[in-house]
Every structure is written in C-alpha cells, then in structure tokens.
C-alpha cells in the first residue's frame, strides 16, 4: 500500500470541491418561474364539465376545526355517499406553503382535495402561482344563498374565484381586567407609556403592520409604501420606548390571561375560549379599526377528487351544518343565519350547554355587530414586489 499522500487535507479539499461542482451543475439551471396567467373562463368551464363524482374526498385542515365525532362530515357521507379522509396537517400557513411549494412546483399532487389557508402572503402565492383550482360557482348554490355579503366580497379573492371562507376571526385588543382598570377603547392604549413593558404585539408583519396603520388613521386596504414606512416608524418608537414586552406569534393568550402582559393584540376566538373558562380577559375592536382575517377553503392543483371537494365545500354552507361547525370552532362563521339557529338551540338546551350557547350567541367575538364590521379591514393585499418592501419594514422591528 502506498504511503498516504503528504497533504491529505488537499485531497479532501478536492473531493469536496468535486461534490460542490456537481451540485452546482445540477442546480445551475435554477428554478423555473411559475407565474401563471389566470385561466380563461372557457378553460374553467371545460375543466369542471369533465369532472365526475369519485366518491371520496381528502380534507386537510387546521387542528380543532372539526368536532371530534366529525358529525358534519358523517352527515355529508350519508347525504351524498362520498366518503372522507380528514387530516389535521396544517399548523402554520408559512410551514404549509413551504412544504407544498416544491411539490406543486414539480407538478405533483399534494394528496389533498381541500386545503384551508388564511388570507395572506402564502394564500396569495398559491393563487399567483396557479396552485389553486378556479371554482365553479354554479355548483356552489349554498354558498351563494347563505354566505354573508362581506364573505362574498373579499379583496384578496375578488368574485371568490379560487376560495370560499371556512371560518373568520378578528384581531383586536385583549386586556386583563385584573390589572387594567379602565375600559380600553382606543388603539393608542397599546402605545401608552403607562403600560410600559406590559404590552404584547404580534410578530406577523401583516398583523402588526395593520395595527401600526390603524394607529395613524390609515386604511390598510388602500395603503401605499409611504404609509407602511410611517407605520414602521410609529412601531419603532413604541419598541424603543420599551413599551412592548414581546412580539408574539400565538402565545400571547396565556401571557395575557396570567397577567404577564396586561394588553395585547389578540384573536377573537382565543379570548372567547378563555372567557368561557372564566378568566379575567376582555376583547375589544379598537375605534380606529381592527383586522378581520379568514381561513379559506381551496382546491389545490392536481387534486384527485375536485368535484367531491366542491360538493363538500358547498355542503358546509347549509345553515344547520354551519351552525354545528361553529358551535365547536367558536370563531366567526361566514353564514349569518347561524346566529338565529344557535339562539333557537339555546332555548331548548339545559344547564351548562344552555349557558354556553347563550354566551356564544350574544358574543360579538363570534357574531360581530354591524358597528364592528364597519371598523374591520383585511390585511393589505401585496404583490410579490411589494412584499419585498413591506416585510423588511416590519420584520426589522420585530426581529431586531
């Protein structure tokens, strides 16, 4: 055997260089852009005309968005003969998109017929990249008949071409009544130095951006780059003054309930559940404005059973079914008729159930009033280019 060469490291260096060169060559072509032109109306009609019922549907959703006994899905099965597979595989929009993108980009199916995503950057990408199948509204009669007007006109999906809502929520201010004496009504309370170190803000750029804009009287749905910069400055001042204790993703709710923070940006459903448990938290939509977000159903490209998916999506818009769903989820339903149905149910219920149902029906957290809706705005709709500007402005504050 030859004696080992004197410069072993150099051999290794070459070997590593060899690997890298191969890898570079592999990927040197780069990744093809996938920007899809919106399909022509005829193409959509043709697509749906060809679809038949397959008798099966795979539904991917967030956890705790379906009662444990899956009653609505069971009833769907009885009514249509379509069997279902329900998978609680979506935990975060960003994570889900991060996983779906390489798969769909390669033209492979995700394995799901319906997925649920919140309106925002990732949903927008799904639409822009052509990953969402355009819907056939002639087959969505229940949606047409029962969905609230606001849920039919969503700025991020005009005409509900690709998505229909599953459930909605409101971002407002939550505060712990044990530590906060006054009634909070204004968004300025979040910026008030007397709450120094006791305020929680959200780390998501779109959430915190909206609140920065509300505080300056700007409408996020009509905002410009200059507006974002101004909002950024206001939020930076808030941070520099030490008012914010932490930028939370979703764990603010425990912190507020326990009193680690006294006020926070918050989602309505979280607060509702804590109130049910008797904790001293209150929720308010600030006068200056609050955000309404929606978790939407869509059919991903390459879905195996699109017609069955469409049928299920429409089935969930029957008021009785929607009521059953909302009773469990305890967020805002896109079907206004649900409020009356739950009120009726409360009349015949007993004991704890009765109280719970009455709380739900009366709660503006589950059924926002007209006055509330007037104040609510969605996230700023951003093109890809705009995101490159928008995100760093707010991330530099939350991730400094």
């Amino acid at each position, binding site marked *: 055997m030859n004696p080992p060469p004197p410069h072993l490291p150099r051999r290794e260096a070459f070997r590593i260089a060899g690997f890298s060169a191969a890898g570079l060559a592999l990927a040197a072509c780069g990744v093809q852009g996938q920007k899809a032109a919106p399909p022509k109306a005829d193409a959509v009609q043709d697509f749906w005309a060809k679809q038949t019922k397959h008798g099966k549907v795979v539904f991917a959703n967030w956890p705790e968005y379906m009662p444990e006994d899956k009653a609505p899905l069971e009833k769907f099965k009885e009514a249509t003969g379509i069997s279902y597979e329900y998978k609680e*595989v979506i935990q975060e929009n960003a994570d889900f998109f991060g*996983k779906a993108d390489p798969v769909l980009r390669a033209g492979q199916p995700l*394995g799901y017929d319906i997925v649920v995503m919140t309106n925002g950057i990732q949903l927008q990408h799904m639409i822009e990249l052509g990953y969402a199948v355009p819907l056939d509204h002639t087959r969505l009669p229940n949606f047409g008949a029962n969905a609230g007007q606001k849920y039919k006109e969503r700025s991020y999906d005009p005409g509900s071409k690709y998505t229909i809502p599953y459930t909605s929520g409101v971002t407002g201010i939550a505060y712990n009544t044990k530590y906060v004496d006054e009634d909070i009504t204004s968004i300025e309370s979040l910026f008030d130095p007397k709450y120094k170190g006791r305020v929680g803000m959200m780390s998501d750029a779109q959430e915190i951006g909206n609140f920065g804009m509300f505080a300056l009287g700007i409408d996020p749905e009509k905002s410009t780059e200059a507006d974002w910069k101004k909002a950024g400055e206001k939020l930076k001042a808030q941070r520099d003054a030490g008012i914010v204790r932490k930028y939370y993703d979703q764990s603010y709710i425990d912190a507020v309930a326990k009193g680690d923070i006294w006020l926070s940006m918050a989602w309505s459903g979280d607060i509702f*559940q804590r109130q049910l448990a008797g904790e001293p938290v209150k929720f308010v939509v600030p006068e200056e404005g609050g955000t309404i977000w929606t978790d939407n159903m869509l059919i991903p490209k390459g879905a195996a059973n699109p017609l069955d998916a469409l049928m299920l999506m429409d089935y969930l818009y029957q008021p009785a079914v929607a009521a059953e769903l909302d009773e469990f989820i305890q967020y805002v339903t896109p079907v206004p008729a649900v409020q009356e149905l739950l009120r009726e149910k409360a009349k015949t219920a007993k004991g704890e159930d009765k109280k719970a149902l009455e709380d739900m029906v009366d709660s503006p957290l589950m059924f926002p009033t007209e006055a509330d809706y007037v104040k609510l705005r969605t996230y700023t709709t951003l093109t890809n280019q705009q995101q490159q500007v928008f995100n760093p402005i707010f991330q530099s504050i939350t991730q400094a």
Partner: protein
Amino acid sequence: MSRSRLGDRLLHGYTWLIIIWLSSPIAVMILFGFNDKQSKSNTSWQGFTLKWYAQLFEISDLTVALRNSLLIAVISTVVTVVIGTMLGLALGRHRFRGKGTTNFLVFAAISTPELVMGASLLSLFVSGNVPRATATIIISHVLFSLAFVVVTVRARIVTLDPSLEEAARDLGATAWGTFRQVTLPSIMPGVMAGAMLSFALSIDDYVVTSFVNGSTVTFPLWIVGAVKTGIPAQVNVMGTLIFGIGVVIAVVNAVAVRRRT
C-alpha cells in the same frame, strides 16, 4: 477519608437535584392531566378529575399520531445505532482515506439548522419523486441522529485499549467473535447512550418532520398544531403515561441490578 465521603454525598445529592430540575416541567404536565378544564385551554386550574384518563383515546387523530411517533422512534433508533456504531468504530479505530471528509460531514449534520435540513430533504424527495410518508420521516430521523450516535460512540472507542482486541485475535478469535465478545461490551455504554439520545431526538422532533411527513402526523406535530386552539388534556395524560412507563422501567432496572449484585 470522611471528607471525600462528604464530597460523594454532595455530588450524589447534586445529581438528584439536576434530575429533579430536568423533570420539573413534567410535574406540571402531570398535574394538568387531572385538570377539570371547561374550555379548550388548559392553563388554569379548575379542579381535580380523572375523566381524561377514561377518555384517553377519544381523539383518534392524536392516538394515531402517538402510535406513529413511537413506531418511527424505535425503527430509526435501531437503524441509527447499527450504522452509527459501525462508523464510530471505523473513525475511532482505523486510519483510512476519507476520514477527514467523514468528520466534516458528521460536523455538518450536527450544525445544519433543522429548518434547512428539513427543507433540503423535502426538495430532494420531491425531485426524486419519493412520496412523503412514514418512510421519509424515518430516513430523516436517522440522518440527524446519526451524527450524535457517531460522536458518542467514537468518544468511547477512543478511550479503549486496543491491546485487548489484539490479544483476542492472537488467541484465535474471528473478527466477528472479537467484536461480539471483546469490543461490543466495552463500547456498550457508548452505544446505549447513543440509542437513548437517538430515541429522544426522534420522538421529539418537530421541524424536520414537519417538512418530510407528507400526511403522516406525529405526536409533536399534532401538539404544535393544537397549541393555537388549546391543548387537550389527553396530551398531558399521554405524556404522563410515557413518563410513568419510563420511571417504572428505571425502577425495575434498579431493583434488578441490586438483586444481581
């Protein structure tokens, strides 16, 4: 002499202190498995109840997730320990070409942020048209556990005296026999340590698994998903049972050992 005994006692007490510190959040977890909570969240105490133990398997998705996690952890631990020990042996004992590169790769495996590892594995599987499911999870778990097992076993092997093995060979033992009867027992602590590390890494992994799981849900994935709406108490109960079984195994082991000596 008595001073050294005091030192021993202190160290012993200190060790128990550390074990208790490591287990303290578990105590909280066990406690809230008995919480008579009314809403979906489980963070304020509302009374004692055993009902969650009765309803343990009510959430079928959760039960499936737990089963998946256990299965994956066992399989990936076995694979990792076998091939990792082999590599650790090679690295610790022999000189060969490519040792430097191997060391570098082992380092790279430990120092890759989980997020990056998960994303790059997903891209690999997608371009290779490999369907993402339990198998891909196992592959990924072996990948990141491998480095830990190799490092642990190697640290052990390096301290061994090669003359014992040489003696065995001189006495006529085969390579496999030498390994089985001389080498393996001496490296067993390293191997066991590696196995435990690997199992713990696998059963608790979130980030990498979340990329390559396809539609298979594991225990950590399910729990993280439920954090947003409130973790059901069944999760606490399952954690309690896992911990409880572990404690029972430890106690049985301790007693058995005492009987033996």
